[in-house]
C-alpha cells in the first residue's frame, strides 16, 4: 500500500543516488563474491530443478505470503517449492517426476565428472552460469526498480507479486550469501541447496573430503552414503528421505547417541561434524513429531514409517500399553505384513517370530493370532491405519520423557508432547502445562524453567523450576520444548534471535516446517501412491534385543526420559523465518557501516552468535495467540493462522527492505527521497523491535532466575547494567546492538543464556492482537523511524548515567545512560507524519492498536536500592555547572553518586511542555554483568518532532571495573551509533558500598 509506494520511490532514489543501481550493485557483488554468485545461480537452478530444500530458503522470505497464494498446481516435489518457483518450474519442467530424474541424472553426471560427494553442487555451478545470464536478461525485463534494489528490497517487492520468479531467484541468492557468511551454527540454512552452495564456493570439488555415514532406518536396515565432511544435517536427512521415497518428512528426524541413553537430534541446519564431534557417523532415522492424528497424513508410506516407529516404541516398552492393546496392535501388524490369516501357512508359531511387547507371553501371542483372524480383508494400508488409530490413543503416544527433579528434589519426569508439558511422578500424571499456559521456557545450567500464566483468580505469573541431571540434559529438554511448541502450535517457525543482542545462550529455534505448514504442503502432494515394500518387522523386533545402536527402541521405559532430544533443526527453514532473517540482515547492513557488503556484516553476526551458544536460554511464548487457540477447533486455528499470515503478508508487502547503503544515501539525498527511504527502514525496525523484546524478556528472566544466584554465589559478584537511551536517526536497532556488544564483552557465564523463541508467534500475533506489547513497540519504532528519517537539525544527546549500586551482597552497579535527541524540522516532520499516518492505517487494518503510546518516556533511570547518601552532580555540557544534592535514606551502607552532564539544548527540550508523545519504547538487553536498556521516545512539539534515545547502562561489578572508561566507551558508542544526533545529557549514577572505593 503506502509502504509499497515508498519502496518504489526509494528505488528511484536509489537509482538516482547510486546511479546505475543494477549495474553498480550487481557488478560489485559479482566481483566481490563470484563464488557466491555461482552459488546463487546454483541455488536457483536447484530450486527449479528439484530439491525441496531450496524452497524453504526462498520461501523463507516470501513464504508466508506467497505460500498461501500458491496455486494447487504444485505436484510432487514441487510442492515444496514456493509458488513462484513453482511457476517457473512449470515452464522449465513438464512434470515433477521429470525433475527428479533430471536431478538424479544431473547428479550422476556430476559424480562422474568429479569425485565430489555433492554432485548437485558441482553440477549446478555450470548450469548456474548459463542460467545466470538468462536470469540477467529476465531481470532486465523485470522491473528496473527491483533489480536495482539490493536483494533485500527485491525480497520485499517480490512479496508484492511484482517481483515474479526472476526476482525470486535473486532473493534466495541474496539470502544465501548472507547465510553463508553467517555463522554456520546459528544460521538457519536448512536447505540442502544452500548447504551445498556453501561448500562449493569454499572448496573446489576435488578437495572435498567425504565421510562415510550410516543411518539405521526404521525397518532395521542400514543406509550408507558418503557425505562431504562439512555437510549439514539437512543434506543427510534429505538423502535419507529420498532413499525412503518419503515426502512428508517433517515429522521425522535423524538422531544420534552420545551414549546408550543420550539421544540427540541432529540439527539439520548445522554441520554434522560439529554436532557429533568425535562420535561415529552413525544415525538413526526416527519419528520426531508424532502426529496426533495420523489419519491426516497424506500418504500411506508416511503412515507406514510411523507404524514402524511405534512398533519399535512398543516393543521396547517406551510406549507402554496394556495386554489387550499389545495384542490388538500386534494383530494389525500381522495383517499389514502377512496379510490375511492363512491357517495353512500360519501355524501356531508363526507369531513368535514377531515381537509385540517387551514381555511377550504365549498367552499374548495366542491373543494376537486370534485377533489376526478377525482382520481378514484389511489391506496393509488399512491395517496400518487401524494400528495407528489405536496407538494414537495411548496416553504416552508422542510423549518425549525426560528425567528431572522438582524443586524439592523428588524424581519426576517431564514429558513433552504436542499439547504441552506433562509432569509425571512414577507414571502418574501430577501436572500438566498446556502450551497456551506457558509463557516462557528457559534453562540455565542444569535448571529448566517454565513461566506459567496466572491461573484464574491469580494475579501473578509463576515460574516453575526443574532440575535436570546436567546442563546438556536441560538444554536438550529446552530444545525439544521449543521444537514441539513451534511444530504443533505455530503457523510457521520463528526466526532465531538476532545475534546483535547481547543475549547469551542458544539462539536455537526450530527451523523446519510446522505441522500446519507440512499439512499444507502435503495437501499438494500429487503423486501416485508410491510402491514400497513392507519389510517384516521380525527382524526389527528381534534386533531390538540385540540393540543396534541405531535403534532407539532399545531403551526401556525408564531410560526413555533420559533420551532427551537435542536441537533438531532437521526441518527446512520456515518461509517466514527466512524472510525475517533477511530483513534483519538488511537492517544490520544499514545500521552497520554503509560501505560494508552484506556478507561481511553477516560474518560479524556469525561471530556474535558464537558467543551465545551455551548461555541460558529462554523460549518465550506469546500466548495471546495461544490463549485464543484454547477455545478454537483446529480448523478455526488454522483459519486464524491463515488470516494472521495474510495480515503479515500485507505488512511485508507494504514495507520493502532496507538496502545496505541506504543510510548513507539518505543523508545525501533530498528530503523526499529520505522519507521514502524510511519505509524501508521500517522493516529493520521491526526486526529490531523483536530483539528488543528479547532483551526485555531476558531481563525478566534474569530477575527471576539469576539474581538470586548471583547474589548468593559471590559475595562480591558484580552486575553491570548499562542502560542506553538513544534516539537513533536511522534505526533503533543500532543502539541495541552496540550496547549489546559492549556489554557482551563483559559477559562471562556461558551457561547462563537467555533466549526468546516466540518472535515469530509475536509477529503473527501482532497483527491481530492489539494488546501485544511487542506489536506496539514495533509500530512505535516504525513511527519513530519515519520521523527520524529527517537528519537535519538533529542533535546527539548522550546522557550517560553511571550508577553504582551496592547491594547488601557487595554488588556494585554502574549505570550509564546515554540519551540522544533528535529534532527535526517541521516540514520534514510533516512529511514524515504523513507517512506515519499511512503506516498507522496499515496497522489498523491489521487490527493493531496503538495503545502503547501512553508509555511514559523515562529519561533517567536511577536505581532505587537502599541508598544512604546520595550525591547528585549535574554538569551541563556547555557550562559545566554542577549541582550536588544529598538526601538521606535509612540504610547506611551504600553510597550513591549521580553526575549529570547536560547540554543546554537538552534543557529546552526536556523542560518544555510534554508535547505529543508519539511513541515510546524500551529495549532491554542484559548480560550477566551488564544490563542495557534503550528507551526511545518520540514526541512532537509544536510541529517539531523529537526523538530521544536514552540508553541506560547498568554495570554491576567489582571495584576493579574502570567506570570512567566504561562511561567513555558508552558515550563513544552512542555517538557512533547515532552520528546524526547530539548527546544532550550524560548522567552517571554510582552506588558503592561505603567501604569500597568510590569510583567517581
Amino acid at each position: 500500500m503506502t509502504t509499497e509506494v515508498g519502496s518504489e520511490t526509494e528505488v528511484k532514489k536509489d537509482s538516482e543516488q547510486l546511479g546505475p543501481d543494477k549495474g553498480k550493485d550487481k557488478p560489485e557483488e559479482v566481483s566481490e563474491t563470484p563464488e557466491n554468485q555461482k552459488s546463487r545461480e546454483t541455488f536457483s537452478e536447484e530450486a527449479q530443478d528439484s530439491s525441496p530444500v531450496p524452497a524453504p530458503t526462498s520461501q523463507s522470505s516470501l513464504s508466508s505470503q506467497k505460500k498461501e497464494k500458491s496455486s494447487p498446481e504444485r505436484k510432487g516435489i514441487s510442492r515444496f517449492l514456493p509458488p513462484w518457483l513453482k511457476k517457473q518450474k512449470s515452464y522449465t519442467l513438464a512434470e515433477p517426476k521429470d525433475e527428479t530424474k533430471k536431478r538424479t541424472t544431473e547428479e550422476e553426471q556430476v559424480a562422474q565428472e568429479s569425485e565430489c560427494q555433492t554432485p548437485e553442487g558441482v553440477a549446478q555451478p555450470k548450469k548456474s552460469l548459463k542460467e545466470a545470464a538468462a536470469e540477467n536478461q529476465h531481470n532486465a525485463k523485470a522491473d528496473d526498480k527491483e533489480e536495482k534494489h539490493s536483494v533485500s528490497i527485491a525480497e520485499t517487492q517480490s512479496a508484492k507479486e511484482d517481483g515474479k520468479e526472476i526476482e525470486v531467484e535473486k532473493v534466495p541468492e541474496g539470502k544465501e550469501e548472507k547465510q553463508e557468511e553467517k555463522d554456520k551454527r546459528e544460521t538457519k540454512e536448512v536447505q540442502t541447496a544452500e548447504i551445498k552452495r556453501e561448500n562449493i564456493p569454499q572448496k573446489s570439488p576435488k578437495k572435498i573430503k567425504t565421510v562415510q555415514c550410516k543411518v539405521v532406518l526404521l525397518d532395521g536396515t542400514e543406509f550408507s552414503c558418503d557425505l562431504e565432511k562439512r555437510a549439514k544435517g539437512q543434506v543427510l536427512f534429505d538423502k535419507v528421505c529420498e532413499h525412503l521415497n518419503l515426502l512428508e518428512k517433517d515429522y521425522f528426524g535423524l538422531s544420534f547417541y552420545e551414549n546408550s541413553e543420550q539421544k540427540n537430534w541432529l540439527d539439520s541446519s548445522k554441520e554434522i561434524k560439529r554436532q557429533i564431534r568425535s562420535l561415529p557417523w552413525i544415525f538413526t532415522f526416527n519419528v520426531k513429531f508424532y502426529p496426533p492424528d495420523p489419519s491426516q497424513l497424506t500418504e500411506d508410506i508416511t503412515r507406514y514409517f510411523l507404524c514402524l516407529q511405534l512398533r519399535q516404541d512398543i516393543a521396547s516398552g517406551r510406549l507402554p500399553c496394556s495386554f489387550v492393546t499389545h495384542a490388538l496392535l500386534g494383530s494389525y501388524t500381522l495383517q499389514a505384513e502377512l496379510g490375511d490369516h492363512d491357517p495353512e501357512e500360519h501355524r501356531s508359531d508363526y507369531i513368535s517370530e514377531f515381537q509385540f511387547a517387551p514381555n511377550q507371553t504365549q498367552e499374548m501371542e495366542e491373543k494376537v493370532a486370534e485377533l489376526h483372524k478377525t482382520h481378514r480383508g484389511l489391506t496393509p494400508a488399512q491395517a496400518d491405519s487401524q494400528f495407528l488409530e489405536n496407538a494414537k490413543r495411548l496416553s504416552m503416544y508422542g510423549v518425549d520423557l525426560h528425567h528431572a527433579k522438582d524443586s524439592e528434589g523428588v524424581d519426576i519426569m517431564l514429558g513433552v508432547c504436542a499439547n504441552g508439558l506433562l509432569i509425571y511422578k512414577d507414571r502418574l500424571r501430577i501436572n500438566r502445562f498446556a502450551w497456551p499456559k506457558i509463557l516462557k521456557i528457559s534453562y540455565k545450567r542444569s535448571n529448566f524453567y517454565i513461566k506459567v500464566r496466572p491461573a484464574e483468580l491469580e494475579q501473578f505469573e509463576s515460574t516453575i523450576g526443574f532440575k535436570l541431571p546436567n546442563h546438556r540434559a536441560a538444554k536438550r529438554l529446552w530444545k525439544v520444548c521449543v521444537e514441539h511448541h513451534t511444530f504443533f502450535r505455530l503457523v510457521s517457525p520463528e526466526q532465531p534471535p538476532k545475534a546483535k543482542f547481547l543475549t547469551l545462550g542458544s539462539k536455537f529455534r526450530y527451523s523446519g516446517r510446522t505441522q500446519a505448514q507440512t499439512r499444507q504442503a502435503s495437501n499438494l502432494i500429487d503423486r501416485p501412491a508410491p510402491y514400497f515394500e513392507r519389510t517384516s518387522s521380525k527382524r526389527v523386533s528381534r534386533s531390538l534385543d540385540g540393540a543396534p545402536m541405531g535403534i532407539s527402541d532399545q531403551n526401556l521405559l525408564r531410560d526413555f526420559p533420559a533420551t532427551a532430544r537435542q536441537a533438531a533443526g532437521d526441518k527446512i527453514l520456515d518461509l517466514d523465518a527466512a524472510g525475517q532473517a533477511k530483513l534483519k540482515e538488511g537492517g544490520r547492513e544499514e545500521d552497520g557501516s554503509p560501505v560494508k557488503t552484506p556478507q561481511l556484516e553477516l560474518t560479524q553476526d556469525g561471530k556474535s552468535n558464537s558467543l551465545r551458544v551455551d548461555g541460558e536460554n529462554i523460549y518465550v511464548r506469546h500466548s495471546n495467540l495461544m490463549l485464543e487457540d484454547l477455545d478454537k477447533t483446529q480448523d478455526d486455528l488454522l483459519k486464524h493462522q491463515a488470516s494472521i499470515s495474510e495480515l503479515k503478508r500485507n505488512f511485508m508487502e507494504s514495507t520493502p527492505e532496507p538496502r545496505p547503503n541506504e543510510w548513507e544515501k539518505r543523508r545525501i539525498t533530498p528530503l523526499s527521497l529520505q522519507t521514502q527511504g524510511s519505509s524501508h527502514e521500517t522493516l529493520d525496525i521491526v526486526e529490531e523491535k523483536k530483539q528488543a523484546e528479547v532483551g526485555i524478556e531476558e531481563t525478566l528472566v534474569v530477575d527471576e532466575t539469576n539474581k538470586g544466584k548471583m547474589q548468593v554465589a559471590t559475595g562480591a559478584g558484580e552486575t553491570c547494567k548499562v542502560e542506553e537511551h538513544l534516539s537513533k536517526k536511522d534505526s533503533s536497532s543500532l543502539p541495541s546492538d552496540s550496547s549489546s556488544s559492549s556489554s557482551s564483552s563483559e559477559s562471562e557465564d556461558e551457561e547462563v543464556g537467555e533466549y526468546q523463541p516466540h518472535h515469530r508467534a509475536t509477529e503473527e500475533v501482532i497483527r491481530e492482537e492489539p494488546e501485544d506489547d511487542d506489536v506496539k513497540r514495533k509500530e512505535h519504532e516504525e513511527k519513530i523511524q519515519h520521523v527520524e528519517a529527517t537528519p537535519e537539525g538533529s542533535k546527539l544527546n548522550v546522557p550517560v548515567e553511571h550508577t553504582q549500586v551496592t547491594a547488601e551482597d557487595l554488588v556494585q552497579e554502574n549505570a550509564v545512560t546515554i540519551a540522544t535527541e533528535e529534532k527535526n524540522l517541521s516540514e520534514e516532520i510533516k512529511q514524515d507524519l504523513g507517512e506515519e499516518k499511512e503506516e498507522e492505517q496499515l496497522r489498523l487494518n491489521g487490527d493493531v492498536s496503538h495503545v502503547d503510546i501512553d508509555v511514559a518516556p523515562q529519561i533517567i533511570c536511577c536505581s532505587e536500592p537502599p541508598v544512604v547518601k546520595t550525591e547528585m552532580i549535574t554538569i551541563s555540557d556547555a557550562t559545566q555547572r554542577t549541582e550536588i544534592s544529598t538526601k538521606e535514606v535509612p540504610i547506611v551502607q551504600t553510597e550513591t553518586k549521580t553526575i549529570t552532564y547536560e547540554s543546554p539544548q537538552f534543557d529546552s527540550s526536556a523542560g518544555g511542555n510534554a508535547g505529543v508523545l508519539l511513541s515510546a519504547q524500551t529495549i532491554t538487553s542484559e548480560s550477566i554483568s551488564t544490563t542495557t536498556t534503550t528507551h526511545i521516545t518520540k514526541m512532537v512539539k509544536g510541529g517539531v518532532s523529537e526523538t530521544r534515545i536514552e540508553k541506560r547502562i547498568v554495570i554491576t561489578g567489582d571495584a576493579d571495573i574502570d567506570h570512567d572508561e566504561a562511561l567513555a566507551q558508552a558515550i563513544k558508542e552512542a555517538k557512533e551509533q547515532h552520528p546524526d544526533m547530539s548527546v544532550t545529557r550524560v548522567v552517571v549514577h554510582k552506588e558503592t558500598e561505603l567501604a569500597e572505593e568510590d569510583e567517581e
Partner: protein
Amino acid sequence: RQALRSAAGPEVDFARAEREHQLYVGVLRGKLGLQVLELPADESLPDCVFVEDAAVVCEETALLTRPGAPSRRKEVEAMKRALESLNLNIVEMVDENAALDGGDVLFTGREFFVGLSRRTNQRGAEILADTFKDYAVSTVPVHDALHLKSFCSMAGPNLIAIGSSEAAQKALKTMQQMSDHRYDKLTVPDDAAANCIYLNIPSKGHVLLHRAPEEYPESAKVFEKLKDHMLIPIANTELEKVDGALTCCSVLINKSSEL
C-alpha cells in the same frame, strides 16, 4: 458392627436401606436388563455393600484394590471370587504401602483420575496406572470429602457431573488442567447428587441413574435437563448417612457373562 462413617448422624434405618438397595438392584436388573451379580452380604464387613471400593474394572482387566480402611480389606476377597468367575484379567494390589478405594477412581472413558484422599494414596494410584497402561492416570487431591466421587461422576460419554462445593470445583479445575481432553461439565447444587450412574446400554441408549427429586430437588432439576438421557431417579437416603453414594453400590462391567 457399624459401618464406617465420616460423621455422626442419624441412625440408619436398616429396613429402609434394604428397600432402597433392592430398588437399586431392581432397576439395574429389571428395568435395564443388566445381569447383576450380587455378592453375599457379610455381617462381619459392615461396609461390604459398597462394592465399588473393592475393584476397578476397565475393559478386560480388573484391579482388586487395597481399601484404605483396614477394616474393609477383607471385602476384596468376595470381589475376587466374583470377578474370577467373569473371566477377567485380574490384578491384585499386593503392595502393603498401597491404598486405593474404587470410590476415588473416576474413569472418563479416556483416562483415569484418581483422588488422593484419606483412603487412597500415591502408591495405590501408581499401581492403578501400571494396571491400565493405555490410559493416562492423573492424581487429584481430594479434601473435605471422603472420595473423589463423593462429589463427581460421569453423567455422559464426555460429561462430568460435579458438585458445587468449593472442594468439588477445585477438583474439577485440577482435572481440567490435567487432561488433554475437554470435558463438558454438569454442575449440580448438591455434591452428593453429583454422584450418579451413567450407562450406555445398546437397547436403551444413554441411561442415567440419579438421586431422587425428594432428596435433592434442585439437583434433580438439573438432571432433568438432559434430554437425551433416560433418567431414573433413585433414592439413597439411608446409605448416604454412612457416606454411601449411588456408584458405591455397584461395579459396572462391560462384558456379557456366561453365568
